């Protein structure tokens, strides 16, 4: 069924373009731009599983990305594991952590859940900053010759780029698959009316804990890849509250609850931010502009870009999920 869905082919085409663009002409600087776009899409898509599908606002989503980065970097750089294996294990480990955590805090609803996620973010950050094996607040560094295993630094950067693009495509396919599944229906029921969902026989606690855990997996894998590429990790960049909040902004911008919207919002927001940051005239005001944009979206277009598109071209609702 998913194989016949047009969005699947949009996703694959998107990923293919992302691979082709920098390869064509060996454009390293474009690649560096696009990897950030891909990371934004990964974060926004997986956050969408919680906020868009289940209606639970997770302010601390970045904790998965950061923990994944730490585990991945620790295994790959300090223990000499294969990068892909280290990233996968980081994903599994963080998902399990999220599952256990979720069973505890998903008893909370609404704003209380949102606050608990902030608390977890700060607590985890503080723990890592005191954790000796992970280098406390100085963090971990990849030794320069670690890249030799992947054929030297130049080559290693390309390899991580392709892996990140793969994770991005998987994130979007996962969003699509969940949306079309019975499990996804259960999540929507929770979002619309959790009390009614319980009456209908949805085991909401388990559903919520599972989706919380699933939404942790790919960000953790991406974190492992990205921090390996960056060559270092420390608590302040791994668990950046601002980035967590920006994930929500991306989602709102694109349109929460939709596969394409999350990706679109992630990509556009990242492009906008990096344009504003490096533009000599506007760089002082990048936060003002991004904030103003978010305000306009929240006040006047709560459905985001996709919501606006649905209204403008009603037929698009059938094609775009």
């Amino acid at each position, binding site marked *: 069924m998913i194989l016949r869905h047009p969005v699947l082919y949009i996703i694959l085409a998107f990923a293919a373009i992302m691979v082709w663009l920098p390869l064509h002409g060996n454009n390293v600087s474009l690649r560096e731009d696009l990897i950030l776009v891909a990371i934004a899409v990964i974060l926004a898509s997986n956050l969408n599983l919680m906020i868009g599908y289940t209606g639970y606002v997770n302010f601390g989503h970045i904790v998965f990305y950061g923990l994944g980065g730490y585990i991945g970097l620790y295994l790959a750089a300090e223990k000499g594991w294969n990068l892909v294996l280290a990233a996968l294990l980081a994903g599994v480990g963080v998902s399990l952590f999220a599952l256990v955590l979720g069973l505890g805090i998903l008893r909370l609803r609404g704003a209380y859940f949102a606050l*608990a996620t902030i*608390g977890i973010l700060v*607590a985890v950050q503080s723990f890592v900053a*005191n954790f000796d094996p992970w280098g406390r607040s100085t963090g971990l560094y990849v030794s320069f010759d670690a890249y030799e295993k992947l054929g030297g630094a130049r080559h290693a950067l390309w390899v991580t780029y392709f892996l990140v693009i793969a994770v991005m495509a998987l994130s979007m396919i996962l969003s699509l698959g969940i949306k079309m599944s019975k499990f996804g229906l259960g999540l929507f029921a929770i979002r619309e009316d959790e009390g009614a969902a319980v009456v209908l026989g949805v085991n909401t606690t388990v559903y919520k804990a599972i989706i919380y855990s699933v939404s942790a997996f790919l960000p953790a894998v991406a974190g492992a890849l990205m921090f390996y590429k960056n060559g270092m990790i420390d608590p302040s960049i791994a668990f950046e509250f601002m980035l967590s909040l920006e994930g929500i*902004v991306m989602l709102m911008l694109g349109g929460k609850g939709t596969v394409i919207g999350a990706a679109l919002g992630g990509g556009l927001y990242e492009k906008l931010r990096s344009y504003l940051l490096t533009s000599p005239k506007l760089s002082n005001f990048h936060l003002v*502009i991004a*904030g103003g944009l*978010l305000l306009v979206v929240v006040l006047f277009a709560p459905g985001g870009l996709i919501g606006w598109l649905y209204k403008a071209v009603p037929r698009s609702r059938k094609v775009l999920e």
Partner: protein
Amino acid sequence: MSGIFASMIDGLLIGAVYGLAAMGLSLIWGVMDVINLTHGATIALGMFGMYILFSAFPVNAYLLLIPIIAAGLLLGLLIYWISVHWVIDRPQLASLLSTFAVNMMIIGIGTAIWSTSPYNVNFTLPGITVGAYTFTGNHMAAASAAVIIALALELFLYRTRMGKAIRAVADNREAAELMGVSSTMVLALAFAIGISLAASSGALVSTLFPFTILSGASYQMKSFVVTVLAGLGRPFGALVAGVLLGLLEGAVTPFIAVSWIPLIEFGLFVVVLVLFPRGIFGRATA
């Protein structure tokens, strides 16, 4: 004097300032069910407000609180009108995001003006020395000011017609409208007071420590902890919880490295949330 005793007094003094900061968040949350994410940015504006005023009028810094409170009220009305008024009847996510958007804008403008470099308010009151320990005059003055402002708010809420209207709107907005209370006006007022409290707590902090435009963020985090410990919509409870949090910090620090404090505080925060979603001192049922 023993170390732990001194450390707890230090904790108590700074705790009163945490409490004052949290009161603003708590009031807004309780009255209008809005989690005000401009809180941290407003605290930072309070710091810079003090810096600017003190640079222009180098009098006793604590006297400058009065214009800061007044400016905070105006700022609060403005922020209310920009970010909250239009989304007050929408799901909570809307106001969460709209206040966050305004937070980004304030931080952005602040960064453009003051950069993110540290600033200082160079005003020092003489301290008191007991044995080897000295308690600075600024800490004592800031804590006293925090308590006085908190008491004034308490009197306002419980003794004046306007204050009672705020409580009535917090309790039951529709019924308050039926009594002839303009809930829009009351919400705007409550928001303005909340912002003014945040700004004044920032002004107090600025007399104690150096600060940047980003410094508000950590006090916003502390405010969340304090608010949740106190239970929502309990401004005075927030002061008490703030002082308790300070005391706890003071009691714990002699035994462990200071860097563990956030883990303990926020771990406690999550546990309390899960076990007592309405706060330790919260109302039983609404």
